[in-house]
């Protein structure tokens, strides 16, 4: 088997080929006539509000935006946006989005999925969409529970979680979605809290602008089956000591007074330290655009299951050719060659080796 140099097209922005409009848009323009049917207090409301108010900022023609979802509470999302949308089947939204993105470069394609949808039944499609670097933006709503099926543990539930299906506590080791995405060669990985509209919008903005697969993990509350699961990141005195916001190009510091920093650990990874103990120079600087994902991965490992620390912001943002640009490039090149050669369907069907059967002579037989 041989490999060839593909001569992939140059990079651009994620929305470069999507038509824009000069008309001013408002959140209301993205609001469909469907009544929103999530439970009162569901974190999905906050995310929906953020997305509705963020989309006008893109200035795209509304008809060129498509939201595709799988199955689960969060996957009802497309019904509530007045764009094109498809509520598909459990775990398969990335596959639908893949076919759409490859054939329609003029569309802004979004996938809305949850921790069960993306990481359990759809885990295979998620990693392959990231590996291929499809030009799509994946919003992974992580509430660490199965909500729509009424409260079973999910692949992101903490070990020992007592649920309807695990009365003695779950024995599964959970996924860390950011680590998983980085391991799957994702070119853009971010994380935000549902209630942090500013932080979420900033991650969405950069995710949309990224050409390639963007994975945005959104921590989100399920008030019915996992109530208050992220409260320690929202309120109380400890919030600042738990949340580690990433700012590209800046030293990674946090705490009420910025008294904590992320530093290299003896094992080669990263750890949290008091700056007073280690000195300013020991604090590592965040570089989302670093080709080597090692530091981004180490940052993802700082997020503990018990939320002692949670890193938010953009972990990684690098350029790599996208599958859809590459596939279209081959079709375009082949089409040009075919036109130059004058290929046509008749010639294809006829092939090279043919023989003619002439009319039968009369009166024979």
């Amino acid at each position, binding site marked *: 088997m041989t490999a060839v140099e593909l001569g992939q097209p140059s990079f651009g922005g994620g929305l470069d080929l999507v038509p824009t409009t000069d008309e001013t848009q408002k959140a209301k323009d993205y609001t469909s006539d469907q009544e929103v049917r999530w439970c009162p207090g569901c974190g999905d409301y906050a995310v929906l509000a953020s997305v509705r108010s963020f989309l006008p900022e893109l200035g795209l023609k509304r*008809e060129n935006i498509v939201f595709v979802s799988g199955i689960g509470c969060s996957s009802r999302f497309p019904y509530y946006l007045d764009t094109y949308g*498809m509520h598909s089947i459990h775990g398969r939204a990335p596959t639908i989005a*893949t*076919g759409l993105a490859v054939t329609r470069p003029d569309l802004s394609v979004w996938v809305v999925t949850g921790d069960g949808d993306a990481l359990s039944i759809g885990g295979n499609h998620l990693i392959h969409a990231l590996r291929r670097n499809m030009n799509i933006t994946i919003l992974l709503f992580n509430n660490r529970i199965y909500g729509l099926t009424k409260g079973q543990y999910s692949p992101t539930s903490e070990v020992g979680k007592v649920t309807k299906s695990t009365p003695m506590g779950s024995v599964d080791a959970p996924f860390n979605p950011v680590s998983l995405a980085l391991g799957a060669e994702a070119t853009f990985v971010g994380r935000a809290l549902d209630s942090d509209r500013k932080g979420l919008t900033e991650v969405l903005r950069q995710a949309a602008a990224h050409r390639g697969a963007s994975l945005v993990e959104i921590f989100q509350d399920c008030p019915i089956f996992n109530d208050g699961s992220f409260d320690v990141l929202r309120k109380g005195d400890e919030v600042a000591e738990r949340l580690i916001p990433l700012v590209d190009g800046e030293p990674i510091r946090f705490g009420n007074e910025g008294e904590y920093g992320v530093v290299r650990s003896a094992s080669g990874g990263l750890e949290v330290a008091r700056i007073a103990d280690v000195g300013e120079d020991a604090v590592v600087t965040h570089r989302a655009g670093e080709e080597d994902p090692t530091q981004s991965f180490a940052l993802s490992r700082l997020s503990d299951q018990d939320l002692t620390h949670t890193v938010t912001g953009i972990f990684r943002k690098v350029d790599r050719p996208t599958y859809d640009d590459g596939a279209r490039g081959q079709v375009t090149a082949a089409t040009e060659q075919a036109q130059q050669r004058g290929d046509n369907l008749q010639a294809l069907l006829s092939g090279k080796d043919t023989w003619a*059967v002439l009319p039968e002579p009369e009166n024979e037989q």
Partner: protein
Amino acid sequence: MSTDTAVGPPSREVRQTHRVVIRFAGDSGDGMQLTGDRFTSEAAAFGNDLATLPNFPAEIRAPAGTLPGVSSFQLHFADYDILTPGDRPDVLVAMNPAALKANIKDLPHGGMLIVNTDEFTKRNLAKVGYESNPLEDDSLEPYTTHHVAMATLTRGALEPTGMSKKDAERAKNMFALGLLSWMYHRGTEGTEQFLREKFAKKPELAEANILAFRAGWNYGETTESFAVTYEVAPARLAEGTYRQITGNLALAYGVVAAGQQSKLPVFLGTYPITPASDVLHELSKHKGMGVTTFQAEDEIAGIGAALGASFGGALGVTSTSGPGVALKSETIGLAVALELPLLILDVQRGGPSTGLPTKTEQADLLQAMYGRNGEAPVPIIAPQSPADCFDAALDAVRMALTYRTPVFLLSDGAIANGSEPWAIPDVADLPDLTTTFATEPNAPDGSGEFWPYLRDADTLARPWAIPGTAGLEHRIGGLEKADGRGTISYDPDNHDRMVRLRQAKIEGIEVPDLTVDDPDGDADVLVIGWGSSFGPIGAACRRVRAAGMSVAQAHLRHLNPMPSNLGDVLRSYRRVVVPEMNLGQLSMLLRAKFLVDAHSYTKVAGLPFQAEELAGVLTDAVKGDLPA
């Protein structure tokens, strides 16, 4: 086509014959498929009618010299229109003891056997359980056996090239081809040209193979072993220009043509699986004709991407075999609910589970018909021969686009790899498959809204509104939708109505009436089949009629919906016989739907029916000897 060598030596008897069946059998690594393919091309170029049956193991290289490693290629060529690759070979070429042991039972007494004696060593004989050498005992007495030391002769012919003995021996399949080409008065130029092209980058290999091929030809010419040569005149097929084509190639061409005729980009989302992978291989060559191929991470992703492409306005296609259909079932159900066009190519193979990947079977009918949750009707079309795959693909796309529905096309391993002459169609005569996308709001209440499930009164199809169309933004999904508006609906009456509407849409698909072939006009037995059994059933009917009995034949191309005259046809015969390569799936449908006492004759041996056995069944039916 060269005719310079197509003349037998004058001292030999040249016998005219109407038809010949040759089977090349050897080890998986012996190049039997290539040899058979090449002889097929020569027969095609000569103008014979032909039909082929490749038969190979699922393992790429099973242990050399063993029975599981035997690969064979059967070719039937004739001077008239034939229907099958032939029941039994007239000539068996056996390259080793395993090939002899696996195939000799099919050679009729008096048949010609050509054996490569070099491989009949003690060790190779022991490998397949021969206690004594069949070339030396009397077990081959019933046959006209020719002992030819093909490896030795090939080695000798290639000596001047300086190739190693081992490499030289690998060309022995070309020696066999040369010998058979001589025996049947086939030219040498076509094959030599083919070898030069095939090994264009390794001219030394091309020359070696050509030397072996010529050595085989000359061996026939110069030795006294072969007293007779045979001529099979060109067949009187219908006027036209022909080429040889396999089912998978015809299927791929049908998809390319459907894209051109519908003016839609084609998107194939698929995952490699035997025996359907050649469809992917072929379509991946035709990017210049507007075809995008996507090799997905699994079967589910393949069809998911195809459906996504259909949502965006492309012609979504997925190709697979039975196990893949099982994985795709949920997405097919989604496509039924979304009412979007989608073509599902199922090249059936032996099941259940992994089953017999390289062998044929037609046991996916009920899976295609009912293999989904809920009431999820899907049209089904089945081609009856390799070349017919082209027309079937176009017809499948017609249904998919006109009625906005997924459509199953059921091919099978025998059709996929088998080949026959194909009267190349004139593109100008191909059906127009152009379709329209919705561009305007359509709400009947004048609200200016777009209702994605407002149906066409004739076809019951819904509008296809693709993203990018302003004003038609809408959401669709797997949840039940309100009739017309398409919004989520849990209303009981609405669900009942939508289930019936989806069913009515598929039942209302226009398909041609079933035609019955009853040349005598007085048959009281009807034999009805579907898919690849057309050839053996037709050949069986010819035999029965040649014996002075009457039998009517009909073949179902459309399995869902079935032709509207089918019930009348079935009820107008005293006896209905349904041969199938499954345990009676069509006969069950016919019995359930039409309350006819259809007699099911089934066989699931991984091989096509033989005309002889079916003729026996039909004869019994005509004579009233079939069990009730």
